[in-house]
């Protein structure tokens, strides 16, 4: 065991030292360096080409939207995997939740959390945030509900079958938006080129398909991660 620790330490030391040299050769980050052609292009033309003022959203849902489809699929796969792992687990019978005080507090803040999550999803193309961040917040809300009200109540409120259906439908919504480009004679995942509504950059209804994709991702991530948490806290059969 001790030998293994020393061996690991030496291995990592060698690896890190090799990387120190490599990173030292990169342009120094502490002074201004000219940005690459790719970056200049996106900063210069991003708003005009995508209609989104949040350039990260422009990259994430337009220039590199294919990455986003891939990462949504990664979540989908992880959810399917977790559900598969806990397939036969029934509900914890004694999940009754916390005190009445905690329940009333959640009644008050719950709607606010929901609105905040939705806001982050819907305004993703103009302000920081977007489908992923908002979706995680929505999933956290279901986690709060299951802690405060108990898993039974959360299950009654949001049936796992409903979550599965919602997750799949949101993924299909993403695919539908993506295929609009194919059917309009453009390319897969085309945005403004496929005739999506450009709007006035900076307003809510702008950015073409970007808000639509944000909503799809938000619902998908929210439903998927809620399902992950639900599956993991279920009681296992003995």
């Amino acid at each position, binding site marked *: 065991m001790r030998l293994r620790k020393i061996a690991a330490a030496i291995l990592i030391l060698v690896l890190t030292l090799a990387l120190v040299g490599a990173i030292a050769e990169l342009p120094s980050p502490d002074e201004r360096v000219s940005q690459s052609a790719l970056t200049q292009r996106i900063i210069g033309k991003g708003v005009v080409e995508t209609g989104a003022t949040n350039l990260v959203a422009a990259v994430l849902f337009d*220039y590199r939207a294919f990455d986003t489809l891939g990462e949504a699929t990664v979540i989908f796969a992880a959810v399917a995997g977790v559900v598969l792992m806990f397939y036969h687990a029934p509900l914890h019978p004694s999940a009754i939740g916390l005190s009445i005080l905690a329940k009333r507090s959640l009644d008050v803040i719950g709607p606010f959390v929901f609105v905040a999550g939705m806001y982050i999803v819907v305004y993703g193309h103009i302000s920081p945030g977007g489908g992923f961040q908002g979706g995680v917040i929505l999933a956290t809300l279901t986690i709060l509900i299951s802690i405060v009200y108990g898993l039974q109540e959360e299950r009654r409120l949001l049936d796992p079958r409903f979550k599965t259906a919602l997750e799949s439908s949101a993924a299909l919504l993403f695919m539908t938006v993506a295929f609009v480009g194919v059917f309009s004679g453009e390319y897969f995942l085309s945005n403004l080129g496929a005739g999506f509504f450009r709007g006035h950059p900076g307003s809510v209804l702008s950015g073409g398909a970007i808000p639509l994709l944000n909503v799809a991702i938000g619902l998908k991530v929210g439903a998927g991660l809620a399902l992950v948490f639900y599956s993991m806290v279920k009681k296992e059969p003995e």
Partner: protein
Amino acid sequence: MSHLPILVIAIPLLFAFLIPLISMLFPSVRRITVTAMGLVYAGLVGMMIWGYHAMGVDRVIYPLGGWGPDVGIVLELDALSAAFAGIMGLGILLVILYSQDYMEAAESKYYVLLFIVASGIMGIILTADFFNLYVFIEMSAIASFPLVAVSRRGTALFASLYYMVFTLVSSALILLGIILVYAATGSLNMGEVAAVFDTIPELTRASIVGSFVIGLSVKVALIPFHSWLPPAHAEAVSPISALLSGVLLKNGVYMLMRLLPIFGFGDGSLDVRTLLLVIGVLTVIGGNVLAMGQGNVKRILACSSVAHMGYIALGIGIGGALGFAGALFHSLNHMLMKAGAFFSVGCIADGSFELSGLRGAALRTRPAGITFAMSTAGLIGLPPFGSFASKIMIMFAAIDAGMIGIAAVLPAGAVLSAIYYGRVYQVLYAPSEREPDDVSISPWQTTIVLVVTAVGSIATLVWAGNLARIFATIADYLVG
């Protein structure tokens, strides 16, 4: 042709998203739907390859979202991608068909994950963008972890976790390499990076190549990074063993073949060719020696996968058109034969794969017994089977390059594998007192799969001349 490169990625994804809805709404048609989906997938891949050859161009570029390679992500279909798409597409189809009677309990999630793997593999093969490559690597890997653990036996769960930890470290290394590429070149497109790769400072270049080569060696299970493979491949249910050994390992092979020419084989302070040769020899000998010590049929097959990855690494390391062509050809053969062997052994034995409990088992399940013998004889490299030709090709490549020592490793590996497969034959085909009850193989799909792998393993030798010529053209184009 126009949209086919994206369709082979998007359609299986669409299937994966649809399967939960279908099994919820129309549970009765689930099985036949999945078979149809598998056929559609393979059909699309076939049409894409056919369309590519019919066009007669070097490469087909599909700009996603209409963005060119300078800003967005593009898919690029060239000869190497087409060859691998063919190998992997066929492998996935066989796995989907064979899985028919395996997954009662796991319901639809099993197929969801299978189609995500199918999509991820095509993504890896077709993308021309470094970060997109990482996303697809993660996608196919994450979908494969729960598939390994699908039986939910303790050993399978632990094997899955072990496999997962290794894979995550390897993809972190690959991501590190990608970040360094972006930091050094300001671009993520493979073509653009290849054009300026020589201008990157020496040490950075070595670090990029180093992190990719180590990361991919873990993925391909080259010794000394192999220890995750035997448990994962042996503990999974048989169709998944075939998926991992036959198809997913070739992901790493494809990436080595795609990326090393971009990196100029790390000429400079890090010589990847020599490294691959050393690791390759170690892996061929080590994998075969490991296999000799096993008492479980699937573990023997898994360890032999390690050895076969060694042959492929040798082919890439020897380099030149002949070496690359040999590695490509061997990838095809290994897919057919290793998948065939896992499929057959899944029919021969159910549950336990310990040799001690399988006396005469292959005689009791005649069709699978025959295909098992054919596949494993092919894996040894015996003449009527395709891998004989591909091993000879790699050997000639070594002799051509004046590396007689390397050439000698191949027959040595074949002898070693003949010894341990011989031991397996002695047990599986031992006449036993029990009456042969001739277990029939239940769904028609399974029979088809067994026949395809068995016929395929011979057909690759029959057409070895043509195949070798095709692969040599691809290798010529790669080596430039």
